[in-house]
Structures are given as structure tokens and as C-alpha cells.
């Protein structure tokens, strides 16, 4: 298992290779990328900011929990910080296991826990030049959910 916060583009193929082994016949990958719209606003980029010491601790704990919960799984996760352009990967998770069900489930476990408890925040850049920190617990603007 391995988890990292990185300031450079994430190499998904390298993460796939890192978890691969001839005993593990199923590998899954999750890639989260910066979208061009959010709640109907046009986004041009994103800042990711972490409370680094704590984020790294939580990420490592989550990856270790995934491997404990799915024995035989090997899981790695990298999350990027800094300013990202549209379509760039903010997070990549690779998971490998002898069988496909735990390969999928351990990968999914990591992204769900990451979104629940890793202290990372994002600030969207809008095409009108404004920026805003995102609160996933806030209701979306009424207009975007008719």
C-alpha cells in the first residue's frame, strides 16, 4: 500500500504497474478529473489545497483499511494539489486482487472514504473570473435543480 500527495501530473499507468502482479488477475483504476461544469456554472480550472500532514495520514490510513478489509488487495492512491486545468487528474486509485469483486470494491472504498474524511478542499475557477471554495454539504443553487 502507498498513498501520496503530489504537486505534479499523476501517472495512472505507473500506478497500474505498481499494483500489478501475476498472482493478482484483476486490477481496477479510478481517475478523478476536473470537470468543465459544476451546478451549471462553467469552470475553467481548480485549486486543490490540503492540510498536508493530516491529509497524508488519513490517505495512508484509508489505503491500509482497504487492504485489511479486502485481504490480498494491493492498493495505491495519489492525490494532486495545486492548480489544475480542465481534464487533469486530481486523484488516481489503483487496486489489484486475485479476484475482480474485491478489486472493484477496494478501489471504490478508497474514493468514498477519501471524499468523506481527507482534509482537502477545492476552489473552482469560473470562466467569469470569479473563484469559490466548494462545500459539498451545501445545497446546490436552486436554479440548477429545477
Amino acid at each position, binding site marked *: 500500500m502507498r498513498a501520496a500527495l503530489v504537486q505534479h501530473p499523476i501517472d495512472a499507468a505507473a500506478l497500474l504497474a505498481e499494483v500489478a502482479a501475476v498472482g493478482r488477475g484483476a486490477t481496477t483504476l479510478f481517475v478523478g478529473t476536473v470537470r468543465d461544469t459544476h451546478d451549471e456554472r462553467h469552470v475553467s480550472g481548480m485549486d486543490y*489545497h490540503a*492540510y498536508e500532514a*493530516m491529509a497524508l495520514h488519513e490517505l495512508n490510513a484509508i489505503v491500509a483499511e482497504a487492504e485489511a478489509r479486502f485481504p490480498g488487495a494491493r492498493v495505491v492512491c495519489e492525490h494532486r494539489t495545486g492548480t489544475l486545468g480542465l481534464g487533469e487528474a486530481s486523484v488516481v486509485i489503483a487496486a489489484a486482487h486475485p479476484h475482480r469483486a474485491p478489486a472493484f470494491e477496494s478501489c471504490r472504498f478508497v474514493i468514498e472514504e477519501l471524499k468523506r*474524511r481527507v482534509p*482537502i*478542499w477545492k476552489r473552482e475557477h469560473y470562466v467569469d473570473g470569479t473563484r469559490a471554495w466548494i*462545500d*459539498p*454539504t*451545501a445545497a446546490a443553487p436552486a436554479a440548477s435543480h429545477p
Partner: protein
Amino acid sequence: MSIRVLLFASYAEALGRDEVAMDPAPGATVADVLEHLRTLPGADRLPPRPLVAVNARYAAIGDVVRPGDEVAVIPPVAGG
């Protein structure tokens, strides 16, 4: 020796700073730290019960803080 209180993202924006120094009384808790924070300009934009970490681990409202501790007030996380 005082404690450092770290503010992030929208909370740092609300208070116009990303760090506050504080001298806790002996036996002071996370709740006391938050109460002090609320006296600062912009703190009305913090929620009633924000998440808090002490020394980079999630903490409870009643946890005692000690000189040298790093307390962080954690906005709703949005990684991934």
C-alpha cells in the same frame, strides 16, 4: 507557549487569515478554542459546530488542548 489554530479554505477566507495564535488556560478544550475564535472578525461565517483536528487527527469538542498543540478547524472536505 501558545497553540496554533489553523484555518483552511472558506474558513481562512472568512477570517482573512490562515493561522491564529492563542494562549489556552490550563484544561482548555477544543470548545474553548472555538469560543475564542468566535470573537474574531468574520467568525460569524463559521458553522455552529465545525470539525476540528488536534495535531492532525480528528478531535472531539471536549478534548483538552495543551501548549504546543496544532489545532485545525476543518471545513467540509472536498477532495477527489
